[in-house]
């Protein structure tokens, strides 16, 4: 399965929270199909009973103590990129109609 239909593209866009133009829909259906055809070659690779890789350097369970560490950042610096705020809090659009 690697030829993506218009419906496939629209479903993916919805999952990814993207709105695509008609041009983008047409373009991505052919480009994505081509890319997926290329990666299809993996289906022919015999992997026997190998396990999927999760981490390449062998690290497991890197933890730290659950304590507050002061990195010296000013709260106003951390807030300055907020698109919208109300009394120091992140303001977003209405969620429930």
């Amino acid at each position, binding site marked *: *399965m690697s030829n*993506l239909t218009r419906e*496939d*593209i629209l479903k*993916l*866009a919805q*999952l*990814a*929270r*993207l*709105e*695509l133009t008609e041009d*983008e829909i047409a373009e*991505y259906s052919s*480009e*994505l199909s*081509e*890319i*997926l055809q*290329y*990666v*299809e*070659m*993996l*289906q022919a*690779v015999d*992997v026997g009973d*190998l*396990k*999927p*890789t*999760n*981490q*390449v*350097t062998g*690290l497991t369970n*890197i933890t*730290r103590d659950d304590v507050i*560490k002061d*990195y010296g*950042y000013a709260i106003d*610096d*951390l807030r*300055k*990129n*907020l*698109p*919208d705020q109300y009394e120091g809090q*992140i303001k*977003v*659009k*209405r*969620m429930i*109609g």
Partner: protein
Amino acid sequence: MSAWLPISEIARLVQTGELKAVDLVEQALATISEKQDYNAIIVTLEARARERAMAIDAQPTGRLAGVPFIAKDNFLVFGADTTAASNILRGFEAPYQATAIERLEAEGAICVAKANLDAFAHGSSTENSDFMTTKNPYDTSRVPGGSSGGSAAAVMLDMAPFALGTDTGGSIRLPASYCGAVGYKPTYGLVSRSGVVAMASSTDVIGPITKTVADAALVLDVMSGRDDLDGTTIDADPAGYAELEKSLAGKKVGVIKEYMAEGVAPEVKAQIEAAIATIKAAGAAVVEVSLPSLPSALAVYYIICPAEVSSNLSRYDGQRFGHSYADATSLEESYKKSRSTGFGKEAKRRIMIGTYVLSSGYYDAYYKKAQTVRTKLINEFNEALQSVDFLLGPTAPDIAFKIGENIDDPLKMYLTDILTVAANLVGVPSISIPAGTAHDMPVGLQIMAAQRHDRQLLGFAKEVEGLLV
């Protein structure tokens, strides 16, 4: 010849007061301004750099005292704009900074500018930058490679003695190869990724682009090692990377059969073969090594990378930072409109592919299969690196291509990474060093070693570099 002395020499002369950091910063800024038509630089940090230079001259200490450098614009530098060359981050001012920057500054280095890249580091040419395309210093009609194309061009244009890049599938080594620079991709986890805009977290690494191996080794030495802010970091070699030992005679080198096969331009292959003959004549044992799964590496990469990209880019939702679509009436609309108007074409393309391969019903066939073939590739590398010390081949199948040549064919663009992605998937260190020219354009020799053998790799590369001059 470089306009800059070796980095260790610059720092030494600043420490003794024979060179002034303020003059070095002015030299860098003047060169950047003089060569702005190359589009290598997104923004200069003049005030910040001059202020730091004065402070360093007042107290000239540190192993990189007064050394100017350029960071790819996906590194957060405190108080400076960080765009990742994307419209969605236009105007974003870094509220904290990358550990790599922090460590370089602690040793006296001075960030003078931020370099252009393919937006979010997605690309091989800088043509995916939402702002501009960087030109290759050797031929302005050609691309510098990517995604760290601005960094590589800046170093070759003498804008600074070194630049930082990120390498997720070849983004340091490819532009180094195309521009005639040295590009170093460390072992996965050797340099903290904290404060660097994430692309594909399981393969992202940070490394230097320089004119010499010794410069790259010193910069790596300063940046490397564990960091509490990045749980994937590993310990640096206790011996460090700055003092490299001679290590060529008696070493066993494996020429990767699959990297010398069809698909590599004959002129590039000829340069690599000449380099191999030189290495052999200098006393290394050269054998041919086959890694049969290599032809699948790019397909593995173009499943895993977009999957991680789609996940990492989900944080750009227009609510906490970055571009936000002002006229939305609901939260859902705000997400969609902010992302759709903020992301460029390639980011959207990768988000779509990643969403597809991770979606229910396709996850096993694509993502899980790719991660399993990755295991096979890792096993083959491990086996090969038990019988040889280093693996070797070209960095790229061809010289830098013309601007515009691949822009309408994403798959063709992806294929430029075909020789570099394996090192990222496997996590091994890899370096690209200049090895002659083809059609008057630089050719890069790629050398890889086992994980955590960065010190050995740099020592070997330094000797090879000396032979190829």
